[in-house]
């Protein structure tokens, strides 16, 4: 932690004092497991009054979205202030008050592409956790070729009428609204006939069905649109230019992956797990563990390096594809190694949070959010500039 400027030092003191006064004790356990997360939304059931209070207090200061402009309910903090806030929260092990796709994805898209009225309508409600959003991009027939999506929207008077099917819509069954890509011009080239629509899910034309994975239960759903409707103004960016918004968000999403993976790796250390397993006499396992430690550390340093560059104003850009590729592949390798080290004991099913489920879950990491193959294509074309 480098030394703060005088103003920043004052800000830090203020933040610390406010947190101390306002963060309920129950919210100071640093919990990050799925069940402890506050997702918000119309139907969210708070686990405790403390959880509700913590959200309300943080939202009031805009600190659920610290860097969003204050006029839209955000904290209006600078990069440095944001860092201080996170550091001070970490110091007291404060839980993240709100976690949502609205904060992570729709918000940035609206800030970059939304109309003024859209920002004023949606951003404050995201900040306060009133509306839970989900993302409708993927389709069963599209996969890596995202832009070949077939869900279509037809204008009927003042409304888009939407028909089709989305897949991998995380938490769709618990969300209030969906931002989704819809084909609105079937004659145009495939990237030029897609619009980015905002749709309320509380209508009979939308049905959701959870997807079971090889690793067990998952937040993913299939989402079916049957004459679903949304007002014609609920387009982000221009009609038929939704691909630009999607591309922006995809890069945004990948850039976040590195940090996410680092968090994963921050659990119990590989060495600890392997020492306990007591199977390291096997040179295959030992050599594998050595290699995996080396590669994991190198990956972690690479995330740090790119984060530093980002702080210095150099965006990660297409290199986020590299982070996504390496992070997921190394993590698969790591879990394979742990499974081998634990031997038969790891092959008993200990539920959806057990080691076997974790191992199987990593298999999806190199597919979701863009497959490793797509990441390698991005690197070879955009960074290495190899010919198509």
């Amino acid at each position, binding site marked *: 932690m480098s030394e703060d400027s005088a103003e920043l030092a004052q800000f830090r003191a203020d933040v610390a004092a406010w947190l101390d006064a306002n963060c309920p004790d129950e919210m100071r356990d640093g919990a990050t497991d799925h069940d402890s997360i506050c997702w918000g939304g119309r139907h969210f059931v708070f686990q405790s009054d403390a959880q509700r209070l913590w959200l309300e207090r943080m939202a009031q200061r805009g600190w659920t979205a610290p860097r969003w402009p204050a006029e839209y309910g955000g904290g209006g903090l600078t990069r440095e202030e944001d860092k201080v806030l996170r550091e001070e929260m970490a110091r007291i092990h404060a839980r993240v008050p709100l976690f949502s796709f609205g904060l992570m994805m729709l918000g940035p898209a609206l800030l970059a592409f939304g109309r003024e009225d859209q920002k004023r309508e949606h951003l404050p409600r995201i900040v306060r956790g009133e509306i839970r959003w989900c993302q409708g991009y*993927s389709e*069963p027939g*599209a*996969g*890596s*070729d995202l832009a*070949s999506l077939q869900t279509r929207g037809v204008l009927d008077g003042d409304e888009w009428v939407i028909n089709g099917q989305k*897949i*991998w819509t995380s938490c769709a069954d618990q969300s209030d609204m969906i931002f989704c890509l819809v084909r609105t011009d079937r004659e145009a080239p495939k990237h030029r006939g897609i619009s980015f629509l905002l749709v309320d899910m509380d209508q009979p034309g939308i049905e959701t069905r959870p*997807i*079971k*994975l*090889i*690793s067990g239960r998952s937040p993913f759903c299939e989402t079916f649109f049957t004459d679903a409707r949304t007002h014609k103004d609920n387009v982000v960016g221009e009609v038929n230019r939704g691909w630009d918004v999607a591309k922006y968000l995809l890069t945004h999403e990948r850039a976040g992956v590195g940090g996410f993976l680092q968090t994963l790796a921050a659990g119990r250390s590989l060495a600890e797990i392997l020492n306990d*397993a007591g*199977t390291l006499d*096997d*040179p*295959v*396992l030992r050599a594998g563990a050595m290699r995996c430690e080396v590669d994991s550390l190198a990956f972690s340093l690479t995330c740090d390096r790119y984060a530093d560059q980002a702080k210095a104003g150099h965006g990660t850009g297409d290199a986020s594809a590299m982070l996504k590729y390496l992070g997921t592949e190394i993590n*698969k390798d790591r879990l*394979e190694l742990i*499974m*081998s080290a*634990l*031997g*038969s*004991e*790891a*092959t*008993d*099913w200990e539920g959806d949070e057990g080691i*076997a489920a974790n*191992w*199987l879950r990593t*298999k*999806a990491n*190199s*597919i*979701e959010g863009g*497959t*490793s*193959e797509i990441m*390698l294509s991005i690197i070879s074309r955009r960074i290495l500039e190899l010919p198509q």
Partner: protein
Amino acid sequence: MLREAARGFLDDAAPVSRLRAMRDDGRTGDPDLWARMVEMGWAGVLVPEAAGGADMGHRAAGILAEEMGRTLAVSPFLSTAVIAATALRLAGGPAAGEALGAIAAGRRTYAVAVDEGRKFAPAATGMTAERSGNGYSLTGTKTFVADGANAARILVVARTSGTPGDAVGLTLFDLERGRAGIAADPGRSIDSLDRATIRFQDVEATGADIVGAQDEALSVLSPALRAGQAALAAEMTGLSAAALHLTIAFMKERRQFDRPIGSFQALQFRAAHLWSDIEMTASTIVNAGRMLDTDPQRATLAVSLAKARATATARLAVSEGVQLHGGVGVTDALDMGFYMKRARVGAEWLGDYGYHAAEVARERGLR
């Protein structure tokens, strides 16, 4: 040909959907399917003709196991018809003869209880069989016992002398599962099969329950486990071939960017590499079966080679199988997950890659 007959039967009677249904029903065994396998003579594949078996040998057993691996057919074939049958046959004597006859006729199934920890290590056996009056008293816990909850009888190895790590001092007992003091916890194996923890508490046994000689379990158990390793390797190779087959079919059918994904060179090369890898492993399977049939005393290298290769190949096959299927590959709706889970269990059972690769290296003279 044996292979074609087996494949025809299994495609028809035991597709992966049958395993799926079993899992969804919460069952861990498929006695009806086994009954049909018995009818076809598979239970007696290693039982002498005199005892009512088909006596077709280990290469034939490998072919059956390989075909079962293709469709993930559920059966006590490996435990009963391969490992137990080989041990009983080597032990010889009238009781063993009767047991072999019962195996071939489908009247008996066996579980083979060896492991006590997370890794395969028969010599590390700590479970005790203490002399008690004219007999023995067995106490200890066996883990990850294939077919341990369903099999009618249990071949269990326990220590009659020495300390864990000694290769001698182990004795093999043949016990009916209902004997007092035996309790099996069915477990929840990721491959949905029966892989139980069995607790033995002061279980009484007599000399008549011993298979082979006291203190010399490994002289019958080791060859039997080798036979099991070869058959398991064959099963995993069939599994790998099936995973590749499903993946190739998907690559021909699935379209992305206006082309079948099988036309993408990077994916083609991975499929071609996997095919090549499976071909190499298939060679080791043939070799292991032949060595067990012709020179079983010197089959260690061949068998460990097969199990090491089959383990590595299956891991590659299911990893590629899932990844090349993309999103659908990680859904439970696709069968690939079943292949991946079985490959992981198979990787550990009867010795993992490191165990067998070390055997190979040792046999080749690496110090």
